[in-house]
């Protein structure tokens, strides 16, 4: 059973025939080749597959692809500018040691973006609350939290 859906993916209007039982992470990774989004547990426990749907961070492994019809989807691939310059959050993760093995990074960065888009001045507790569903098995949480906090001081420069 397949259904044709239209949605906006990283700023582009997309029309795609999806199987009703596909998850969003399956659509992104296996069908569209956007493998920046990682799938860790596949059960909504680890947050590695986090993407943003209509401004909300969601686990793409627990979200049916068919349900993004008419919605705005953002993935890690949409963050860098067309010239290849990294987004300030990505720059901050690189600069502050927020990236260790890298597997959790796309999810961490998307959760951070959902938070900072809404609340650019988020404090330490708010950052922890927003990132609590993203697990880092290198256990580098201190640098990750520092990376998100440091974005505030970058003045939104995208260079």
């Amino acid at each position: 059973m397949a259904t044709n859906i239209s949605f906006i993916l990283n700023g582009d209007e997309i029309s795609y025939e999806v199987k009703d039982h596909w998850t969003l992470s399956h659509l992104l990774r296996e069908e569209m080749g956007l493998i920046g989004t990682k799938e860790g547990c596949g059960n909504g426990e680890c947050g590695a597959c986090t993407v943003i749907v209509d401004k909300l961070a969601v686990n793409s492994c627990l979200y049916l692809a068919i349900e993004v019809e008419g919605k705005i989807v953002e993935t890690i691939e949409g963050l860098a500018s067309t010239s290849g310059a990294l987004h300030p959050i990505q720059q901050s993760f690189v600069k502050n040691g927020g990236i260790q093995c890298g597997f959790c990074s796309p999810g961490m960065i998307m959760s951070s973006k959902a938070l900072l888009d809404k609340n650019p001045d988020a404090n330490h507790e708010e950052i922890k609350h927003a990132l609590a569903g993203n697990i880092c098995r290198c256990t580098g949480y201190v640098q990750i939290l520092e990376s998100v906090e440091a974005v505030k001081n970058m003045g939104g420069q995208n260079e």
Partner: protein
Amino acid sequence: MKAFKYLSPKTVEEAIAFHGQHSETSKFIGGGTDVIVKLKEGWMEPDFLISLKKIEEMSELHKNEATQELSIGAMVTHATLEKSLMIQNDYPIIYDAVSNIGSLQVRNVGTIGGNLINAVPSADGAIPLIALDGVALLHGPDGERSCDVKDIFVAPYKTILKPGEILKKIAIPPQASNTGSAYIKFGRRAAMELPLIGIGVLLTLDETKEICIKARICLGVAAPVPMRAFGAEKLLVGKKINEEILIEAGKIAADESKVRDSVRGKAWHRKEMIRVHVRRIGLKCLEIIKNNS
């Protein structure tokens, strides 16, 4: 995951009709944070998945200004409740419970109705709704009926819902003045964790703010289904409220609980935590009443 046909009705009646057409082979899905895991694991293998997401009335959250009744559509997400200033200010016990369910990613999608219908003994969402004397409105092939939220639960993973029946909304009756309520999810960590024990307390005092005229002490993971500690509640009603009597209520509630050993914790530990937290959360209720006046 086995293939299925996804149906997206716009009304409750349409959803029930879809279910009637494929009763043996269809399942309802709300936010999906529990259902999709069950589909992936093969615990559920429907041919038709009937989504409730497009049914607008089920996603409504509003307070009737005339009757002061709060209506929570079953498809209201945990994050919507968590972010609502009305919930934060007037129903702190709901805020306490929903703000630590799963993770933000789960709360952005998962719904309060789904949390109830999934009927795990640890459902954080159930405790505040029971403490607030919530009434569940069910709609099925035979029409509408209602029951106390507490009576939804029959056994772990089992509710009173009949095939084809949908939990449409939860109605919270008006709260008396001088009421305070709070919930604590006690576990090893705040996020992505089921509670070792969940404790919700609601107290209403008389106009002198000394005598307790209503008490609700509700416990999660303390029995196969969410429970009220009736003995502890009875002790408090009609009495002058202070720390000593809350300590006594904590002891009674711990004795009334039917806690057991599990992978997450031992029965004796759960009992101790009920004893300690009934007092602590009771005092928090008194603090809320004081600050609101």
